[in-house]
């Protein structure tokens, strides 16, 4: 796979989340050759780590299955995993990308039979669950991982565990001598779709994410609600595994804040509204959700979803930016202090669990992209410089929901195709 042949009529897509996968497929289904580069061992990105989508409350893996089938069926898309683009040289229509590929220690022979996982003993943090639990050091990234191939955690290389894994594999799929390699790839256009990452919640000191066990982020809450998550889908709070029936949601955790992220992350209001459904699903009439907000930004058709949640007597809305969180030393409950600005009411509310609707920042801020792009003050790609063919897509360009990310990726695919077609015409 690593010796992917590419020409200046190839489109290089950086990032294998839903935006990158979409851009790659839309371009390939127009008859273009695409190399899709993903730094993780499997495609899918952050959406695979979501339990449900708003507003339909459907499951991200449903669309992933279709997209994976499209990839499997389309020889024009070639996928490089555990690979990172470290350099892009050249000009529009004629780029050379340098790609660093980390060793997976598992080759194409792997049948995903799982024998290696049974053999190894070492446990490592499970990145798929934001390290809320641990997994074997030989693991399949997730149920729908593509490529459907195990990975060895680098920490066990050179240990007896690695040898055990190797011995357990009947198909000589484990190759402990794999080394990091660097390859060069030609491309006529580049689509940069490296997506987003949650803002570092520990930086929001008044909320004590780094001090209080029962203050978690919205992305972690997705894992708690997911049957494939660390608690098997039970909403249990970290401190004592107690059922979290009374949950607080703090909006703009990092967003709309000159001390943190200047921009509005757009999705967080809908995410919290959605997550109140998880609490309801789990605890029915005993569920109690409280959303602390500045403005509820349920934009366009999403308003309907907001209205639905608002009509639920078990969900309360308080117009307030929470001032600080304290922890009850005995119960480990969280106590939120602040003022409801609608009419000025002071509160000190106790909750089982507090979810920070954490803001989005680009996972690769513009200044770290190895090519010239026009960026906004938050490091999102705003535009492509004149005469360049490096196009942003999805959450690398803005805080977007899935729907908008896919739109953005589809648009990016066309911009890349315009360049490729020019090159083709020139060469014809």
């Amino acid at each position: 796979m690593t010796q992917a042949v590419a020409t200046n009529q190839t489109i290089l897509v950086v990032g294998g989340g839903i935006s990158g996968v979409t851009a790659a497929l839309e371009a390939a289904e127009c008859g273009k050759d695409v190399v899709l580069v993903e730094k993780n061992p499997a495609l899918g990105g952050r959406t695979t780590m979501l339990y449900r989508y708003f507003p339909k409350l459907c499951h991200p893996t449903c669309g992933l299955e279709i997209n994976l089938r499209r990839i499997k069926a389309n020889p024009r898309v070639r996928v490089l995993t555990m690979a990172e683009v470290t350099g892009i040289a050249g000009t529009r229509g004629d780029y050379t990308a340098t790609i660093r590929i980390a060793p997976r220690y598992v080759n194409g022979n792997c049948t995903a039979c799982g024998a290696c996982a049974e053999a190894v003993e070492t446990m490592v943090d499970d990145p798929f669950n934001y390290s809320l639990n641990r997994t074997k050091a030989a693991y399949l990234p997730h149920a729908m991982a593509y490529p459907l191939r195990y990975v060895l955690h680098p920490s066990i290389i050179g240990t007896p565990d690695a040898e055990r894994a190797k011995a357990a594999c009947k198909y000589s799929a484990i190759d402990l001598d794999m080394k990091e390699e660097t390859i060069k790839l030609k491309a006529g256009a580049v689509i940069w779709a490296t997506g987003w990452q949650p803002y570092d919640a520990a930086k929001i000191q008044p909320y004590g994410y780094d001090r209080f066990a029962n203050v978690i982020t919205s992305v972690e809450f997705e894992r708690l609600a997911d049957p494939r998550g660390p608690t098997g889908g039970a909403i249990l709070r970290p401190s004592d595994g107690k059922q979290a029936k009374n949950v607080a949601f703090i909006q703009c955790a990092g967003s709309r804040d000159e001390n943190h992220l200047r921009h509005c992350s757009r999705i967080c209001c809908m995410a919290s509204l959605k997550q109140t459904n998880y609490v309801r699903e789990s605890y029915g009439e005993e569920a109690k959700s409280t959303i602390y907000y500045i403005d509820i930004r349920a934009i366009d058709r999403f308003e309907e979803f907001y209205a639905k949640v608002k009509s639920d007597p078990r969900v309360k809305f308080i117009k307030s930016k929470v001032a600080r969180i304290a922890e009850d030393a005995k119960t480990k409950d969280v106590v939120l202090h602040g003022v409801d600005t609608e009419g000025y009411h002071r509160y000190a509310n106790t909750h089982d669990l507090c979810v920070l609707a954490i803001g989005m920042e680009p996972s690769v801020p513009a200044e770290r992209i190895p090519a010239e792009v026009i960026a906004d003050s938050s490091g999102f790609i705003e535009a492509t410089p004149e005469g360049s063919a490096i196009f942003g897509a999805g959450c690398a360009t803005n805080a977007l929901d899935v729907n908008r990310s896919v739109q953005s990726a589809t648009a990016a695919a066309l911009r890349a195709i315009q360049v490729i077609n020019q090159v083709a015409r020139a060469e014809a």
Partner: protein
Amino acid sequence: MAKKEYAFYPGCSSQLRGSASNYLTSVNSMCRTLDVKLTEIPDWNCCGASIGYAESGELPRHVMNARNFALAEKHLPGRDVVATCAACWLGAKETKEKLAANKTLKGDANECLKEAGLEYQGKTEVRHMVEVLIEDLGYEELGKHVVKPLEDIKFAGYVGCQTNRPFGINGESFENPVYLDKLVETAGGEAVTDYDQKVTCCGGALAFSEPEKSQRQIKDIVESAYDHGAEMIVTPCPLCQANVEIYQGEINKKYGTKFAMPVLYYSQLMTVAYGGSAKQAGLDGQVIRAKKLEEIAVKVVPVKK
């Protein structure tokens, strides 16, 4: 030739027989050990403090601070100004920031200073004594001089407001600063790291004008120190020290509590740890005696080779 030299701004409360005179005493002893030379700014004046606002207005307040800078620049050029009082440090730092950002304001300030035959250039930095300790010297250096570790004393590090906000010590969090705990540990004491009233306001200057409200704050601060098993409170701020220490009796009367929690300055801890006498550490200046600390202070230790 001293290791470090600074222009010293003790502030009103630290003067001889001032409410924080014990702070001054201990700072001097501590600095002697650390070979830090403090030269008092000649004829320094009050910073105006935040509480002066009703009459001061903006410019007069800045001018008060600008004067101290001007004096330092004139008499002690090239030396950072070091303040031990949180309010002095904050006031001076704010003035420096504002005058740097606002040309008009700086011009006005100098027009006023001319009246006193002075000029503010804005070259001089102002530092808090704590910054000198942890930034210019570092915990390791501070640790080297410890001869009497403050063994088995539990200290609650009470940082308060103005050493912490809005500027704070570099790299420290507003909600959970840890430098006091580190200083305590450097001095060989035990820090109550999960002390949850670290940055609670003691009422500040309103302790005088709004005693009931302030004493409710102080009650929480002391109570929580007890709850966390602390035997003493340590602070970097004269006003915090005074408020938290001297009103405990009042609080006991009002709330039927039995508070007798010694409240000390970090500098007093360091002085004792450095082998200084109770007097050198200004322990005689405690309204609530820090007995355990006095005991260590009188202990004779074999002089290290």
